């Protein structure tokens, strides 16, 4: 187990390094840099920028220098000082900007994942055990509806209905008075009274997918002889199903935990814009269009890190629940 873990940690470091390298390359790809975009905007407004100030900025960030030099400055700043650079657009250190946003993202999407699993797994199990029953067909119909309706449309419908029926505007994550307050019970309450809508929206599509996967996995397992063996022991049917085939059918699902988070972050961009959510998605989009390279780079890299950590977690859970993986090497 220890060897497994050290091996994994080592390859994690290598992967994260590769991610950072590629992330930096991507944000460097568009021609020009933030300063050229900035100059273009200013001259479009008929003003003149101070050439010396521009030159100083160019020096400070090594803009215009070779890629490797810029990358080296960026990565050493992160590793040695935890300094992700400065956002040109917000004129503030990236670290100050992203943690709150990323925290909101992880919180919101984490909750969406939890809701997804809690809703999808029992339905998936039911649909497989009672195959071709009314319940199975209903689950299938609603599942496909959830899958087919675009998230942003569902968000708009929900906002409209919320306004018409309850007279509330669904949007944002906090009421203005709690926006910058510390976490407290009223703030948590305020958060949930706002967050349920985006959580429901974010969870629907994933739930449908998860129901289908769980149903298919379990249908494969239900036919296996070990299920009959379990029945022949005299166990009650629900215990047979939950202890044996469901346990085995969960394995492929657990291995997907790793890439759930990044998928959710990137798929939630439009929902976040529609519902005015202060999450990382819209910030990433904006920083990319304005070539705010250090901000974009930091978000992309942290998403990569999240993926790698998620994969590690799913590997560990997988090794924990499946002895064939745990003992596979020996």
């Amino acid at each position, binding site marked *: 187990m220890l060897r497994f873990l050290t091996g994994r940690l080592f390859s994690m470091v290598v992967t994260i390094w590769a991610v950072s390298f590629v992330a930096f390359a991507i944000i460097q790809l568009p021609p020009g840099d933030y300063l050229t975009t900035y100059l273009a905007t200013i001259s479009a407004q008929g003003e003149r920028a101070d050439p010396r100030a521009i030159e100083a900025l160019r020096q400070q960030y090594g803009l215009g220098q070779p890629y490797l030099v810029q990358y080296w400055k960026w990565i050493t700043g992160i590793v040695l000082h935890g300094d992700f650079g400065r956002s040109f657009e917000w004129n503030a250190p990236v670290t100050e900007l992203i943690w709150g946003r990323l925290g909101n993202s992880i919180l919101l999407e984490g909750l969406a994942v939890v809701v997804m699993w809690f809703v999808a797994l029992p339905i998936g199990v039911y649909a497989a055990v009672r195959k071709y029953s009314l319940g199975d067909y209903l689950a299938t119909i609603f599942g496909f509806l959830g899958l087919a309706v675009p998230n942003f449309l569902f968000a708009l419908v929900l906002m409209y209905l919320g306004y018409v029926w309850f007279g509330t505007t669904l949007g944002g994550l906090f009421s203005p008075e709690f926006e910058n307050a510390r976490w407290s019970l009223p703030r948590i309450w305020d958060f949930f009274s706002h967050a349920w809508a985006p959580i429901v929206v974010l969870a629907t599509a994933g739930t449908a997918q998860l129901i289908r996967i769980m149903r298919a996995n379990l249908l494969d397992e239900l036919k296996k002889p*070990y299920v009959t*063996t379990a029945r022949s*022991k*005299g166990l009650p*049917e629900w215990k047979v199903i939950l202890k044996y085939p469901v*346990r*085995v059918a969960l394995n492929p699902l657990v291995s997907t935990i790793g890439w759930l988070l990044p998928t959710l972050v990137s798929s939630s961009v439009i929902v976040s814009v529609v519902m005015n959510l202060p999450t990382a998605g819209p910030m990433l989009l904006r920083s990319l269009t304005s070539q705010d390279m250090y901000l974009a780079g930091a978000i992309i890299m942290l998403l990569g890190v999240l993926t790698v950590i998620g994969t590690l977690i799913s590997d560990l859970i997988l090794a924990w629940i499946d002895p064939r993986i745990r003992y596979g090497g020996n």
Partner: protein
Amino acid sequence: MTPLTPMADRPLLTIEDVEIAFSSPDEADIVAVRQVDLTLTPGKTLCLVGESGCGKSVTARAVLRLLDHNATISRGRILFTPPGEETVDIATLKPDSLAMRKIRGNKVSMIFQEPMSSLSPVHTIGDQIDEMIILHEGLKPKQARERTVSLLDQVGIPGPRERADAYPFQLSGGLRQRAMIAMALACTPNLLIADEPTTALDVTTQAQILDLLKKLQDDYGMAMLFITHDLGVVAEIADDVAVMYLGDVVEQGNVFDVFRAPRHPYTQALLRSIPTMARKADRQRLSPIKGTVPSAKDRPEGCAFTSRCPYAFEPCAGIRPERTRVGEGHTARCHLLTQNAPVAEAMA
């Protein structure tokens, strides 16, 4: 029918005229088992033989009500009389009812063909055996584990205490089947159903497992319903034998009687198609049964073997032959035994 016998010989399980049909949404029902009568007595082994798809396994699973949802026992009774208890008709119980679950694993247990896939891949051998003991006898996990270890020892698994913590994929095929047997015996059942337990094993292991089963049967005094298509295995282990063809039990009796003087044309043909070891001069060509097994849909209304029987005459295709007593506890279903046919003498 045989007359009523004293308590000691009272049948443990009597299957009477059972028919099992499978329904499907877009086809007519398929009657996989058409007429099965079997009697099992304590301490004796009944071998159920027949070709693939003749309904052996379906019959065995029906005894534990382990059939798929689309299968129904459409006729007949399965009477189970555990020693000192009332007779229950298993055919009338609900598959997931408490009464049925109290029989499963406790009074009647089962060993399956594939020892790899019949054990859960993600639970240890010990866990899977403990579970049954805890379920039926209400022992504490620690006591159950002690029993498990002694069971594993009894079925000849070396290092039973360590092996109890092993997962099925860490054991060889033979050891897995031994673990499966230990599990089946955990609650000292009255009846053990073995569904081709040696088919997936190599010949040496097969012989060891058969010896083990015989020895355990002597120790526990249980009845055994042994399903196989291997007549060599039958000769090795059976007291009684029942021959099945396409859903019908065509002949049943003491293994010596049936092998020495088979009375149904199918049994005769089956025994003739076994190769024997002989000197070159004495060798004879094998005589296989002509034709192939028809599907259950195309089965004649009368005797199922009609289409391949060399002696078939008028009544065979249309009328189902009665169960005819041809010797002490030896019965067969064939019109040749009851009607005067031109070939009857030739057959006898």
